[in-house]
């Protein structure tokens, strides 16, 4: 029996319609199958006659991307919208299980680490084709190589993608997560004599790719699943340049292909029928969504109104509607609430007076009633934060671990501020004359939170704080560490969401004053932080990064978190995010805490949706 060819996977291929006649006429189709014979792989091409049936109505998912994605290029994506779009079109080597958060095979079927854990070898699937959407016919087509065979995603594509992300010419903002790869940082920062060839990634053969790391890192398989590692089509990028992600040009390998991108308005996708993981193709992905219709609506309240009107299948719950959603008989059943791996915080500019004094920072931190903020303003069941990494991240302290040392305590806060004022011979009026400024990026909810906290500082400390906001890109530029001290606000708002579930992604990559952006300006020698001296926290995070013993790492991270939140009080952790969504009863969905949403796994009861929307 084993001598009989075993079907490994089936690819219904290449819409080479030799006889394109009427709808019901039999058509000849070229079918290519990869078949394993006696352990050897053979590509078999057959000509088959099929009689097409009228196509059933596509199962359509209506979603809101939230905003125009800045890019669909996985090498350049930095924000959640871009990641969500790129994640449908490109496969990473691994992915996270949407329910458990564990790292699972995706493009790679298996991987192994060398002794010591500094070299990782990934074995790739051999049946994932490159596909392209034909805008003229409205069909998804396979991309053929020079010999007319379907072109498959291989290890060389992965190698190219990694080197492209790290190439300084690509200017990828997320290149830093690949600094763990040998010579990654040197190549990305343009160090002398380091070329792409020195980067520690190599295709050993067509289906095996090997990564050599700077230091052993147990979390590397999680990084390998990130969008910046997803294979991209070199030949298309080189031919089309920056416009390569437009529909009709873009060549992809994921479960969905982009069919239409009306910038600023909507971005639509269609199921890739050649994707080997669909149940129909012998895989184990059971989602039934044929078409993703995604609009770009920035105002959460508008999107929510569309949801109530059955025009969206799922959406977030805006702050203002929370009371009604939780008490409405229908909406409360559709409401879902779960912890999300993100943290909301206010950073102090640690070298800008008066926040260069730890007592002032502590006073401001202790004067914020996080519980009241969460209960009365946010209302979404968020957890008040007392440190940076939320539960679920490797190495994160338990929530509330430091809340005894950094409690909400107006008396103590006032005393600390008074101590500072006395020492400097200042009055509260002098202090207020300094014009303390809190800045956030423009958004309805950030403004609400800022207004609440502004008043807490006023009531509990007697301090007048000015609140300002700027558009996101301008804002990021304002709060970078090289902005002159005069122009940077004293306090700024930011959030951080997980890239991979390890403390290294949190305390080290965000706050270490040499590795991170150092917006807190910790340990600055001069005003614009051209030079920094590492402090205890920075040393702890560096140690923990290379430490191999998990228990020891946890201890180091605990100490580092304590150092930053309590000893230095360098920032105010405010709360850990939650997902607050509503979903129509006909949609079965997951809530992956990290990475792109897994639309490929979602299932819609189409008849129920049709009945409800009257379509």
């Amino acid at each position: 029996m084993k001598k009989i060819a075993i079907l490994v996977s089936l690819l219904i291929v290449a819409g080479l319609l030799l006889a394109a006649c009427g709808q019901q006429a039999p058509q000849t189709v070229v079918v290519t199958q990869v078949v394993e014979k006696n352990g050897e792989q053979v590509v078999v091409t057959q000509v088959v006659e099929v009689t097409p049936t009228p196509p059933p109505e596509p199962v359509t998912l209506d979603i809101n991307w939230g905003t125009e994605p800045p890019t669909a290029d996985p090498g350049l994506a930095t924000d959640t919208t871009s990641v969500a779009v790129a994640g449908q079109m490109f496969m990473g080597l691994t992915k996270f299980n949407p329910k458990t958060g564990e790292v699972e095979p995706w493009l790679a079927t298996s991987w192994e680490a060398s002794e010591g854990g500094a070299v990782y070898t990934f074995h790739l699937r051999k049946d994932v084709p490159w596909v392209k959407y034909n805008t003229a016919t409205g069909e998804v087509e396979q991309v053929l190589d020079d010999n007319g065979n379907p072109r498959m995603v291989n290890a060389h594509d992965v190698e190219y993608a990694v080197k492209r992300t790290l190439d300084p010419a690509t200017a990828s903002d997320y290149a830093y997560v690949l600094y763990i790869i040998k010579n990654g940082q040197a190549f990305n920062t343009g160090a002398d004599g380091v070329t792409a060839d020195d980067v520690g990634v190599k295709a050993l053969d067509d289906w095996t790719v090997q990564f050599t790391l700077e230091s052993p890192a147990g979390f590397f398989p999680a990084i390998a699943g990130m969008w910046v590692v997803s294979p991209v089509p070199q030949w298309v990028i080189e031919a089309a340049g920056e416009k390569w992600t437009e529909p009709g040009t873009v060549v992809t390998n994921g479960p969905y292909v982009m069919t239409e991108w009306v910038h600023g308005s909507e971005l639509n996708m269609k199921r890739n029928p050649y994707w080997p993981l669909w149940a129909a193709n012998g895989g184990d992905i059971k989602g039934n969504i044929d078409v993703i219709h995604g609009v770009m609506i920035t105002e959460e309240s508008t999107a929510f109104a569309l949801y109530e009107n059955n025009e969206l299948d799922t959406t977030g719950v805006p702050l203002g509607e929370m009371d009604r959603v939780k008490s409405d008989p229908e909406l409360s059943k559709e409401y879902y609430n779960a912890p999300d791996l993100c943290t909301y915080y206010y950073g102090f500019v640690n070298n800008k007076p008066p926040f260069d004094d730890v007592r002032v920072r502590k006073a401001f931190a202790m004067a914020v009633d996080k519980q009241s903020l969460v209960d009365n303003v946010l209302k979404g069941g968020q957890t008040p934060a007392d440190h940076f990494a939320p539960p679920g991240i490797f190495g994160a302290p338990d929530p509330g671990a430091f809340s005894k040392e950094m409690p909400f305590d107006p008396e103590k806060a006032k005393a600390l501020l008074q101590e500072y004022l006395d020492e400097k011979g200042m009055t509260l009026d002098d202090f207020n004359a300094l014009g303390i400024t809190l800045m956030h990026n423009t958004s309805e909810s950030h403004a609400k939170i800022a207004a609440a906290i502004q008043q807490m500082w006023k009531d509990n400390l007697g301090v007048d704080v000015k609140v300002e906001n700027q558009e996101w890109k301008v804002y990021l530029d304002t709060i970078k560490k090289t902005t002159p001290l005069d122009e940077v606000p004293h306090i700024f708002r930011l959030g951080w969401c997980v890239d991979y579930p390890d403390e290294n992604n949190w305390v080290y990559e965000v706050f270490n004053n040499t590795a991170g952006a150092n917006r807190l300006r910790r340990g600055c020698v001069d005003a614009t932080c051209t030079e920094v001296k590492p402090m205890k926290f920075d040393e702890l995070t560096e140690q923990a990064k290379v430490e191999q013993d998990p228990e020891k790492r946890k201890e180091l991270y605990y100490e580092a978190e304590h150092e930053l939140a309590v000893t230095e009080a360098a920032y105010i952790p405010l709360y850990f995010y939650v997902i607050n969504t509503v979903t129509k009863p006909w949609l079965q969905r997951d809530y992956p805490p990290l990475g792109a949403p897994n639309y490929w796994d979602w299932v819609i009861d189409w008849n129920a949706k049709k009945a409800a929307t009257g379509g």
Partner: protein
Amino acid sequence: MAVANLSAEDEEILSRRQRSLWRDSLARLMRNRLALISGAVVVLLVFVAIFADKMAPYDYATQDLDANNAVPSYLMWLMPKHAERYAKIDNSFLLGADYLGRDLLSRTLYGTRVSLSIAVVASLVSLTVGTIYGTISGYVGGKVDNLMMRLVDFLYGFPFLIVVILLQTYFKALARVGAEGGFAKVLLDWNAKMGGMLLLFIAIGLVNWIGMARLARGQVLSYKEKEFVEAARAVGASHTRIIFRHLIPNVMGPLIVAETLAIPGYIFTEAFLSFSGLGVDPPTPSWGIMISEGVQNLRTYPLQILVPAAALSITTLAFNFLGDGLRDAFDPRMAE
């Protein structure tokens, strides 16, 4: 002597005529009931703006987080269905409270200050600058007129909002850096005291005189050839005198009308700028800020947008009707 006498007599006749022109207009305005009511509303608004701190039951910034989104029991009929399941009923706030438990009525009353100040200051600035610029341009004529009007055309080419946004961004950055002393320091201190309003006034005023200047020039061009100007010139009146004594009072009518009709635009500009974070600094309330906050929970707590939106609508309508009434009053031909 004879000449001097004639001039004095002439002046008397002219000034009597002027007064009667204004009085005629006033009489016509009095007959227009809608305009009259609108005028009363505007006077009332000015009164509210001046005495907001005396009238408001609470301070505009005081928050009572536990009373967030409170609704008074007698306004529950304005709320959506099932509201009794979630709304906090609290009669200590006359018109309810916002998401931070701040009194809506007090915030709306204080918001009148911002909106009306914008209306008054921006229109004074644009009226003064625009009238003087346009009149001089139209009166002098020739090359000077050409040059001055080309400058206006040039400025007109810039989209108004972008200029205001640029100015406000610049001013805000300036305010953050602070000034060492001198005039800039005085200005910034005042601005801080006014919750960021002063710089907003300047920004809006600086871009709005352009239309007024064009209008004034057009009027002056038609008036300067009229007989009474000829006569004034013939008796040897100086240019300054002709401009301020004879021309400006005559062109003022249409300008005031245009300005009144432009006021709702200024109020909206303030609302827009505050919404995009370039207006007044929180927690200073303005109707624009309140509306943009209210629209987010329109379907859950409609009261929070209804109150400031009603205030804005009434004000806008009042200024529009008053403007219409003034136009009819100053230019009876258009009314027929």
